[in-house]
């Protein structure tokens, strides 16, 4: 009887193997090939940028009378550790005319007190326009007593990041608005470079996104990253590589083919009037950055407007990435759930020629290679051992398949490292290069499967429409004097 059952199981596994082994393998091949294609597109862009360096004049943007003024919008919730360093760095950005609007989203810590102390804030009676709908109650508006510092601090009841940004959009006085996370540090020229597409092509550019990198482990002095370094723990180290692939290379690649659908909320610049047109960020959506960018594409295409959404690869916003499994898991579950929500909300665009490359290439890609990736990765991870146990796959052959998939993924990471070294070379120390190679070797052994599991959980929570949970990111804060100690890994 048990032989009979074992035989049935074996037959079932054999059937599943027959049906899925090659599709899963082809999927992995296509997935990594798509990464490679994006890396190559970014390499091309990097090469052009290097050649342009000899005749590019960034000061032109600074001195041009047509450079649009920018309102830098910073939502802050319990950011007492780093808010002053962050705002100081934002105020000191090299840009002809910009203001910083901080929205204290009902913080329960000393976020506001730190700002009052640092900038001598005094209350200002101000009626805030209602260009974008908001749900929170604005409690008060404050400005520095010196009358010169272009800073506005808005206190409001807690209503979440998206609503806080919508309040900030209403408060913003300038024609461009830049979203920056309170825990981010921007390079001094970041705003100048990310605004450059608006200066060069004012009629068409409606949004541009900068690069976000992991700050963990780097030397920070006076709110500036003075030396990029690899962090201590493997969890943040692997995220450094992930951010490199996703921001520096992936988005530059999508931008190059005119199909960029994701601008990070940690560093993105939009035309204010376009944001007002699409109603600002959707507070009911957990993937609000992605949703906003897709909504902008949709609105522009629906109106038949000639427009551009671009990524710039040079200016950098540095952000602290999770260093514990708990926080990272929560982040990845949230991201994946957000991805599902946005793709479902804008499903009409997927495969729709009316939306050009966004509808025909980018969004289908996100469905197949992002949304479904954890399902297929875990199916692949489960099938292998099962096939080995049931004797359907010879160990030597199984090993060969695993090695081939692993080698290709490692090659893509190496290619990304090469683009970083040739175009940007931010990580100057030899030991950081060695660690990066180590990351490329180990990230597919456990980490990738772990994040796939978290993403699958996010997908499942989204499908079951469970209550959205943001989770808490524990900040280490940035030092403002000498080099800061690296945040320790879990």
């Amino acid at each position, binding site marked *: 009887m048990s032989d009979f059952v074992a035989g049935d199981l074996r037959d079932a596994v054999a059937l599943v193997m027959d049906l899925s082994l090659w599709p899963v393998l082809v999927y992995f091949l296509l997935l990594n090939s798509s990464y490679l294609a994006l890396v190559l597109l970014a390499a091309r862009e990097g090469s052009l940028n290097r*050649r*342009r360096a*000899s*005749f590019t*004049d960034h000061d*032109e*943007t600074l*001195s*041009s*009378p*047509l*450079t649009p003024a920018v309102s830098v919008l910073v939502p802050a919730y319990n950011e007492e550790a780093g808010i002053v360093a962050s705002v100081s760095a934002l105020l000191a950005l090299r840009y002809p005319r910009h203001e910083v609007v901080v929205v204290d989203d009902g913080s329960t810590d000393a976020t506001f007190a730190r700002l009052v102390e640092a900038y001598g804030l*005094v*209350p*200002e*009676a*101000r*009626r*805030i*326009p*209602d260009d974008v709908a908001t749900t929170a109650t604005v409690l008060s508006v404050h*400005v*520095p*007593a010196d*009358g010169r510092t272009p800073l506005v601090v808005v206190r409001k009841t807690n209503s979440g990041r998206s609503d806080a940004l919508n309040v900030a959009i209403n408060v913003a*006085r300038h024609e461009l608005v830049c979203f920056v996370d309170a825990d981010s540090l921007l390079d001094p020229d970041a705003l100048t470079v990310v605004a450059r597409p608006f*200066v*060069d*092509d*004012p*009629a*068409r550019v409606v949004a541009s996104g900068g690069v976000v990198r992991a700050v963990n482990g780097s030397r920070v002095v006076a709110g500036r990253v003075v030396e990029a370094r690899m962090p201590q723990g493997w969890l943040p180290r692997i995220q450094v590589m992930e951010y490199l692939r996703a921001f520096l290379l992936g988005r530059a690649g999508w931008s190059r083919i005119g199909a960029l659908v994701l601008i990070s909320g940690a560093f993105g610049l939009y035309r204010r009037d376009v944001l007002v047109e699409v109603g600002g960020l959707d507070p009911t959506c957990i993937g609000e950055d992605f949703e906003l960018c897709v909504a902008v594409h949709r609105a522009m295409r629906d109106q038949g407007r000639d427009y551009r959404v671009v990524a710039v690869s040079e200016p950098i916003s540095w952000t602290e990435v999770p260093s514990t499994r708990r926080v990272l898991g929560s982040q990845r579950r949230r991201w994946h759930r957000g991805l599902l929500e946005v793709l479902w909300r804008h499903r009409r665009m997927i495969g729709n020629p009316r939306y050009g490359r966004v509808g025909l290439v980018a969004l289908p890609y996100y469905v197949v290679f992002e949304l479904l990736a954890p399902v297929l990765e875990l199916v692949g991870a489960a099938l292998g051992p099962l096939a080995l146990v049931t004797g359907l796959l010879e160990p030597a*052959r199984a090993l*060969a*398949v695993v*090695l*081939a998939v*692993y*080698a*290709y993924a*490692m*090659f893509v990471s*190496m*290619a990304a*490292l*090469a683009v970083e*070294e*040739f175009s940007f*070379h931010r990580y100057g120390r*030899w030991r950081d*290069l060695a660690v990066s*190679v180590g990351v*490329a070797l180990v990230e597919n052994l456990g980490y990738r499967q772990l994040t796939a599991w978290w993403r699958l959980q996010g997908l499942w929570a989204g499908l079951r429409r469970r209550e959205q949970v943001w989770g808490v990111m524990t900040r280490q804060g940035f030092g403002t004097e000498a080099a800061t100690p690296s945040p320790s890994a879990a």
Partner: protein
Amino acid sequence: MILAAFGVTSAVAALVMLGVVARRVTRRLREARVRRLTAQHRPLLLSLVAGDPPEAREAATAVAALDTASWRVLEPAVVALLAKVRGEGHEEVVRLLGTRGVLVRARRDLHRRRASRRAAAADLLGRAQVPGTVRSLVRLLDDRDADVRHVAARSLGRLGSASAVPSLLRALAAEPPRVPPAAVAQALLRIGPAGAPDLLTAVDHPVAVVRSTVVVVLGRLGVTGAGTALRGLLAGDPLTDVRCLAATALGALGMPGAVPDLVRATRPGSPGALRVAATRALGDLGASSTVAVLDGLLHDPDARVATEAGHALLGLGVPRADVLARSTPSSVVAVAERVPALTGAA
């Protein structure tokens, strides 16, 4: 076959890493060489741009006599000096570049196949302000590469020749513009009032981006003769954006005669953006006669107009307490304890 694929992929990955290491090593060696040579010759370069004429000439002779390998390393540092010095120092650097054949090479490079070479050459000729290159640069405004056209416009501005103004405006009038409006505006500003006659004739150009760019430049240059034309655009241009820019330009010009036109533009029937721009312009204009109007705008139902009115009043030096007193609780009111300096000044 799968194992072979693994082997090939691993080998390629290893090669890529070797390439990365090789790149890092060569870059560091090159940077070290540049640092060493630049430090070695820094006194000469300083004498070149900041020394007395005989000292500068002597330094120029010494640098001109450097061997080719050393010059190749130093050349970028010498070219970079063009952006940092003016007057005699600038002339010395240009003479040195001429002696080393850099300028002749740049003229030749204007016709190279590779766009980055053409752009770099155009940039150098502009920085060096080499006479007789205006025509070549004007031709580059029609180059097939956008970067080259952009750099050509910038260099024409640096050369400061008013004869380039019509060509710059033509590049702007193409659909889409062959050069970014900001680059043209910057070039026109560098050319200065000498280009004003051509700018004035372009105020009613049929292409909106030409009109808007010209309006901005006229305002920035302070061409007072443009007042009538700008008032015409403020009142009747079909595009709100152009009307807003005209308002801003009139504010920058500071002509009291424009106050009635700006006040009209702030009235409720005008587009919201124009009302905001005109309110701001009334503040920029700085005439005392605008205070009463701005007072009234403090109560405007449009929060943006009211905000601008508050800021404008503070900018005009109206004391904070007065602004608060003139405002109703629901209006923008500018400020509580803000701007002590302005308060005192008022």
